């Protein structure tokens, strides 16, 4: 689980200059529909580039690969009750069967169908990942905007809180929080949000600060717009791309951290999720008896989802950051043969 935290933290500084890609369109639409005609001048100027950015994403190979993988998993999660209407934990076969025609991914030491467990596991894992991602990004937005808009004492206090939470070692904090709270899905989500919001808050604050100093915000203040309106209508739409990048990173964190927490047996072990599948695999000695088919599928699924989200994130960077894009083109033109095998290699490993 920490892998995602580690990569998030180490790549965040690099990602910060990322431009406003997909998120631009998302937030643009979300903000655009309710306010109808009033937001036209800024809306029009935002919408045109965002349309081309959407186009850029749709023609970007990385983004499409990532979206395709993600789509498959979401479809599997939604279709799980149709594909396997039975309770996935039900014992249906002999213990520790190797993959064969009847059980495509074999059975666990208890005799449960691994494929059914894996597909049903997608439901809880994606649900928690998405919830944690959206919730921590939302808190990050609130804290970041409040810091940047009000400044002074409020900024000092919020920044201090953010930095303290960033510095406290995440997983041990997760463990003791989960140990004291009653086990359950709600606890897992709550604990992950508590430990996950700080990273997004820091990134969003620095972006909001730079927009806060722009002239149009000063103009809005002088015209007497209310603080909430300035924060959410003037500043927020202009940092949509960073919000998008943060959201993706938070979802990756949520999925990975949930798996880690459940692997330690700190989730609700009676539910079916990828992390719990791995917990039971470890508990039933799948490693020592050589039943690789019990622990490989769930881990691979976590990795594939995280990888697809990173691909989309990377693509947003590429589409919106002209510097990365230009260099890419120049490089591709210069050294065509070297870039090609990399792309195919990645697809093969994915």
């Amino acid at each position, binding site marked *: *689980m*920490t*892998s*995602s*935290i*580690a*990569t998030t*933290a*180490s*790549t965040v*500084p*690099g990602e910060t200059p990322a431009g406003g890609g997909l998120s631009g369109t998302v937030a643009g639409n979300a903000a655009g529909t309710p306010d109808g005609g009033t937001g036209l001048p800024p809306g029009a100027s935002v919408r045109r580039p965002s349309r081309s950015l959407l186009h850029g994403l749709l023609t970007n190979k990385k983004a499409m690969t990532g979206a395709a993988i993600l789509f498959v998993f979401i479809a599997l999660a939604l279709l799980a009750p149709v594909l396997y209407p039975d309770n996935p934990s039900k014992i249906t076969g002999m213990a520790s069967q190797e993959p064969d025609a009847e059980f495509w991914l074999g059975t666990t030491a208890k005799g449960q169908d691994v494929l059914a467990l894996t597909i049903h596991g997608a439901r809880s894992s994606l649900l928690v990942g998405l919830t944690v991602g959206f919730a921590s990004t939302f808190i990050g937005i609130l804290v970041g905007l409040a810091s940047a808009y009000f400044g002074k004492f409020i900024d000092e206090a919020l920044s201090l809180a953010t*930095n*303290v939470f960033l*510095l*406290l*070692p*995440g*997983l*041990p*904090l997760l*463990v*003791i*929080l*989960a*140990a*004291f*709270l*009653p086990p359950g899905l709600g606890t897992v989500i709550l604990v992950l949000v508590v430990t996950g919001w700080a990273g997004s808050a820091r990134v969003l604050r620095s972006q909001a600060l730079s927009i806060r100093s722009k002239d149009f915000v000063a103009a809005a203040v002088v015209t007497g717009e209310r603080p909430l309106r300035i924060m959410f209508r003037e500043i927020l739409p202009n940092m949509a791309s960073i919000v998008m990048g943060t959201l993706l990173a938070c979802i990756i964190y949520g999925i*990975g951290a949930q798996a*880690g927490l459940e*692997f*330690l*047996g*700190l989730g609700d072990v009676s539910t079916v999720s990828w992390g719990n599948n*791995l917990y039971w*695999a*470890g508990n039933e000695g799948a*490693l*020592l008896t*050589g039943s*690789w088919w019990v*622990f490989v599928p769930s*881990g691979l699924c*976590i*990795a*594939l989802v995280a*990888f697809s989200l990173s691909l989309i994130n*990377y693509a947003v960077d590429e589409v919106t950051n002209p510097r990365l894009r230009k*260099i890419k083109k120049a*490089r591709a033109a210069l*050294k065509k043969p*070297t*870039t090609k*095998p*990399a792309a195919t*290699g*990645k697809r093969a*490993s*994915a």
Partner: protein
Amino acid sequence: MRFILRRLGFYLIAFWVSITLNFLLPRFMPGDPVSRMFARTQDRMQPEQIEALRKLLGVDSRPIWEQYADYLHNMATGQMGVSISRFPTPVTEVIASQVGWTLLLGGTALVIAAVVGNLLGILAAWRRGGAIDSALPPFLIFIGSFPYFWLAMGALYLFGVTLGWFPIRHAFSDTIEPSFSWDFMSDVGMHLVLPALTIVLVSLGGWMLGMRNTMIATNAEDYITMAEAKGLRPGRIMFRYAARNAMLPSVTSFGMSLGFVVGGALLTEVVFAYPGVGYQLLNAVQGLDYPLMQGLFLTITAAVLLANFLVDILYVRLDPRVRAS
């Protein structure tokens, strides 16, 4: 100097927050976990030990401020109570016997990952579009997407169980007496390979990409062009001119990633039953050993904060701009 003092103040606040968190958690959690713990273990303990633990964990009728002051005093003097799962050993002793293994595992993995990752990043940025630059990053991002513990399970299964190249659990063989002999050291080394390898593999990508990105920016600076125009050797330009200046963000993330390494080491330790603080933390959780849990959390936090402070001092040494301001 002012910079250092500011940072020191910040770390003290962070430490205070974690102590306060420890104080509040058992007192305001629903379901009263502490009473459950006492119900399970009461008969083994001396009355005065129970009394001390009650106070530590908040089963206490005194006003909350008095409890808090008492708690802070206890923590400052290192009185963390006795461990329940390893009764009657004091918490501090349990931790002391384990912290070394985590430092060994985490330290080895972190240093290897940082050195190799940064070198790869330097090379990738120096030969943009070359083999290292185009093939490694996607591969490492993919590897980095796997959960730590899952890679650890895979390595354990492949190299430990199936191939039998490396031992599969614990930090040294039961048959060897711990000593400073060659036999014991090499045994410890063999046990270290798999856990360290998994941590290195997962964290390598972050280091490499971070270094590569800053290095690309540095390579575009005028003084690099100037150095090339002067006819300096490429190796000298790469390391003394470009890499040296691109190093600073890496130093910062070295401190930041310590916390993550501790977390990663926690899961890896659990998979390999490596006797470090992470493995002990899980045991404490499973044994409802709240005093030990809290002690371990404080120790880990203190270690991370201290390491970050050391990095700050190093940073002042490396970056003259911080010293000047």
